[in-house]
């Protein structure tokens, strides 16, 4: 068994400026990129064909898939919100390129908190940086947390009425 159980985060535990627990993956070798491409049957050559990436697409190297990075951002938020929390919204842009052999760290910071219909909402600024310190994936996320002694976050999740 993998020990992923930790203490549930409650809305009252979170304040603006708090850090989301960061999540690091890598170095991303060609094997990691190949494993991802194979798992999703995506044969876009810029992720595993060095000659194609450099000569045809004029890239500095094979790229770490944006389609892979998005799950790292999601995993960071999901793990931080805990089993009773819910990742409602997430968005990010792939602005920078992460290259084969890079190590990436997803990070987040709380920018706003509010209670609506008995649930705690936590807005975050999120991003991903590599070992060179390059920020390439700016975004935002909205998580939902229970209040201490409050109602459970409904599943399936029902967004609050506007």
């Amino acid at each position: 068994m993998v020990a992923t159980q930790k203490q549930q985060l409650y809305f009252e535990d979170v304040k603006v400026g708090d850090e989301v627990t960061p999540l690091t993956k890598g170095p991303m070798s060609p094997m990691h990129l190949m494993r991802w491409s194979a798992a999703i049957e995506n044969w876009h050559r810029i992720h595993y064909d060095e000659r194609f990436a450099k000569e045809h697409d004029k890239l500095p190297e094979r790229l770490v898939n944006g389609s892979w990075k998005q799950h790292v951002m999601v995993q960071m938020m999901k793990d931080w919100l805990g089993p009773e929390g819910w990742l409602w919204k997430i968005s990010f842009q792939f602005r920078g390129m992460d290259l084969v052999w890079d190590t990436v760290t997803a990070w987040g910071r709380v920018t706003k908190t509010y209670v609506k219909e008995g649930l705690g909402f936590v807005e975050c600024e999120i991003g991903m940086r590599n070992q060179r310190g390059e920020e390439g994936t700016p975004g935002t996320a909205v998580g939902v947390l229970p209040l201490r002694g409050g109602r459970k976050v409904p599943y399936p999740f029902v967004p609050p009425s506007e």
Partner: protein
Amino acid sequence: MAEQPETYITDEVRSYIGRQSEPVTAWDAVEPGAVRRFIQAIMDDDPIYWDPEAARARGFERPVAPPLYPGFTFRRPPGTPDPLDRVKENPDYDGIGAGGGTGLPPIPNLPVRTLNGGVEAEFFALARHGDRITAQSRYVDIYEREGRSGKMVFIVTETTYTNQDGQVLAKVRNTTIRR
């Protein structure tokens, strides 16, 4: 560099905004083996993705798949033309579009090089092992920006993923950059 037109956003290209695909149901169900390969590739061993007991303890009837998994169930069905055959004509085929696709018609006369521009997702429920996912997509926006190496075209699509019970799992907006 190949010569670029004054704009890629012609009236014809603009006419694709708002177009919606028919709902498409993935040929594959959400298979435990496919979920295993997927979570091993993203390196997330959360037991709700593979352990029935852990999933039940968290209120799921059976193991589930990661929030963005539904979009990855759309693989090429058997009995359809092999897109990798394109290398016979064009050894520089980039390998894009070899999956099941979104069901949206391709937009003609855009630059050939493709990048993933970004994602905007809203989650309501997780796909369970065994679920059958249906997707419906539409073109939300198509616009152009001047980049360092010339014009870039941004294509925004929104896809709604539903399970076989009609439960909406997620709405995902993807931005594709053609340059």
